[in-house]
């Protein structure tokens, strides 16, 4: 039996889903968190079934790809569980009535966020709603888990509604609301005050600047703190002695020693330069990248759950229009700063091919993921923070310029912003930590094997001198135009697998500051990693993907040359 969770965006479907199935899905406080469907098996107090979580829809006529996914799912569902935001009954009922009229499948109504109705002075007569619609209604608070058992037990009671209506849908809803809902006046809280302030200019601007700045400082503070006080000591005192013992057992210079340990620097392991599987191979993902993954997603988790992202979208809307997008493009971009893959998937929130193309190309070129960022900080930070900021400033400028160019040349028009702004909600530490855990475990599952594979390939390529041969072919561009050593080709190759190792590969090359800046910038913009590439190709289609690739390569070659000559003039 297929049980489909269906409802408006941002009503808590994913949270209900993970409560019922225990599956790892990200739930946040902004519309469009879920852009694809997830299946899970419910086994709840002996009640079994297959549950499907779907992207939110407002009606049965989809307006973007995420919504198309949800509407298609309706066909194969046996039972529909209509999750409703109880604090917003009126708008949510629109979909409910459409489901009753057009889908005609057994239906169960779930009034989620039930606890919040009390705070907001909303009183809903649940029994009356049951009677009018002729459907079972359960109340839940998915965040705390209240009512979830009741929901699971009630799935078998789902039935076809006998409710008939002929008036225009909103008139019908108006009549219904009058019978089942009573509003009482509620006091304005401090939250309400802040809520208004954060979307009213000019305060909204200062709030945004302060929050974004504070977030970056916090991410850096937590990331560096974890590295200096946890991960580095762990590596130095607990792990290094073990590896040195293993090293003593292996013949120096043998294939195994090269692959596992790599080059020793003055007889010691240099985690950034040795490039063995057990040295750099573990240090890059665990010692350098993981701390920043933890800090980024911890801070992002709060932002997501609190509900600030849509407000940032409003503020940035006019700016985004200049690059052919609308404000909600902030969502794929911010997600992309963590990892480009969910960023690329979030492109489904766009409707037009033009927007998708521009957003995807900008994401792939000028939104470095956190793994890459962490390695740039690791590599460049020792020269001073201003250079790290400098590189990100260059990438940001590139993002703007490229966006403007594409906005000018790509045919068509971009639609305007139209989003629902969720109310602020107090982030629950448990949900934030849960999401953080999901994302870390995905990093372990998806990224760690690729990093190790990458390091293995690097070693094999070097061992069999493949890099030398390739370096010879590409050296004109790399040495003449970019002013980098021809061994850079190794990093460019591996960058397709994982950007973080590619940046790490610059370390043993003994580059000058000038070359490192040029090198990391090229690695950031030239091409997305394989995982992102696959998702982008699927979302964009072959034709647009090829166009996008041409832009990527052209941008990388020119920005490399421009920086090489520009920095020389500046004397860096």
């Amino acid at each position, binding site marked *: 039996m297929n049980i489909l969770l269906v409802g408006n965006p941002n009503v808590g479907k994913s949270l209900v889903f993970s409560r019922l199935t225990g599956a790892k899905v990200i739930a946040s406080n902004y519309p469009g968190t879920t852009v694809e469907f997830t299946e899970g098996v419910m086994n709840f107090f002996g009640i079994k079934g297959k549950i499907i979580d779907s992207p939110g829809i407002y009606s049965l006529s989809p307006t973007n790809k995420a919504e198309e996914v949800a509407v298609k799912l309706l066909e194969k569902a046996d039972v529909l569980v209509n999750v409703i935001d109880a604090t917003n009954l009126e708008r949510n009922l629109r979909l409910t009535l459409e489901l009753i009229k057009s889908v005609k499948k057994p239906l169960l109504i779930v009034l989620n966020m039930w606890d919040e109705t009390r705070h907001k002075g909303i009183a809903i007569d649940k029994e009356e709603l049951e009677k009018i619609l002729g459907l079972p209604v359960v109340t839940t608070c998915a965040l705390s888990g209240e009512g979830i058992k009741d929901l699971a037990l009630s799935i078998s009671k789902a039935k076809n509604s006998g409710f008939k209506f002929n008036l225009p849908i909103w008139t019908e809803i108006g009549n219904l609301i009058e019978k089942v809902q009573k509003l009482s006046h509620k006091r304005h809280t401090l939250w309400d005050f802040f809520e208004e302030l954060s979307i009213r200019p000019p305060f909204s601007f200062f709030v945004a600047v302060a929050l974004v700045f504070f977030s970056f400082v916090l991410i850096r503070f937590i990331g560096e703190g974890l590295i200096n006080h946890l991960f580095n000591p762990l590596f130095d005192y607990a792990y290094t002695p073990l590896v040195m013992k293993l090293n003593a057992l292996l013949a120096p210079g043998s294939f195994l020693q090269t692959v596992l340990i790599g080059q020793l620097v003055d007889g010691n392991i240099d985690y950034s330069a040795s490039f063995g599987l057990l040295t750099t191979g573990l240090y890059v993902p665990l010692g350098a990248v993981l701390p920043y993954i933890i800090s980024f997603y911890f801070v992002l988790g709060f932002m997501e759950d609190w509900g600030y992202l849509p407000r940032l979208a409003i503020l940035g809307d*006019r700016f985004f229009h200049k690059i052919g997008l609308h404000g909600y493009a902030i969502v794929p971009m911010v997600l992309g700063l963590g990892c480009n893959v969910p960023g690329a998937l979030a492109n489904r929130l766009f409707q037009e091919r033009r927007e998708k193309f521009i957003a995807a190309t900008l994401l792939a070129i000028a939104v470095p993921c956190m793994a890459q960022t962490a390695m740039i900080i690791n590599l460049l930070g020792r020269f001073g923070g201003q250079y790290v900021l400098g590189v990100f400033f260059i990438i940001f400028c590139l993002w703007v310029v490229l966006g403007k160019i594409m906005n000018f040349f790509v045919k068509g028009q971009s639609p*305007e912003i139209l989003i629902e702004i969720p109310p602020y909600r107090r982030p629950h530490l448990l949900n934030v930590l849960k999401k953080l855990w999901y994302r870390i475990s995905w990093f372990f599952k998806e990224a760690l094997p690729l990093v190790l594979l990458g390091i293995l390939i690097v070693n094999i390529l070097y061992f069999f001198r493949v890099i030398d041969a390739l370096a010879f072919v590409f050296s004109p561009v790399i040495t003449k135009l970019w002013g980098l050593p021809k061994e850079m080709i190794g990093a460019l190759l591996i960058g397709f697998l994982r950007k973080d190792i590619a940046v790490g590969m610059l370390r043993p090359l003994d580059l000058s500051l000038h070359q490192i800046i040029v090198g990391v910038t090229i690695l950031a913009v030239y091409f997305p990693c394989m995982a992102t590439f696959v998702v982008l190709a699927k979302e964009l289609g072959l034709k647009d993907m090829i166009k996008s690739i041409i832009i990527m390569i052209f941008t990388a070659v020119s920005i490399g040359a421009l920086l090489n000559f520009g920095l020389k003039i500046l004397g860096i």
Partner: protein
Amino acid sequence: MLSLDKLTRGRQAKVISIDKGSNCCQKLENLGLCPGSLVKKISQESSRGPVVVKVGSTQIALGHGMASKITVELL
């Protein structure tokens, strides 16, 4: 009668007509914004920026161009 972008912050009004394509009207209607509905202006991000209104208990942000095509009547 005035367009939604011209409405003063904090004022309530009734939507009279929406002069946009059917696709756009559908999306607005999904959120409860259609001829006959009551809206309250919450804020506007600069003179040509998005307009934030409250329809029922839903706050929605819509592009300036869209807002200028929505005619409302003051209550």
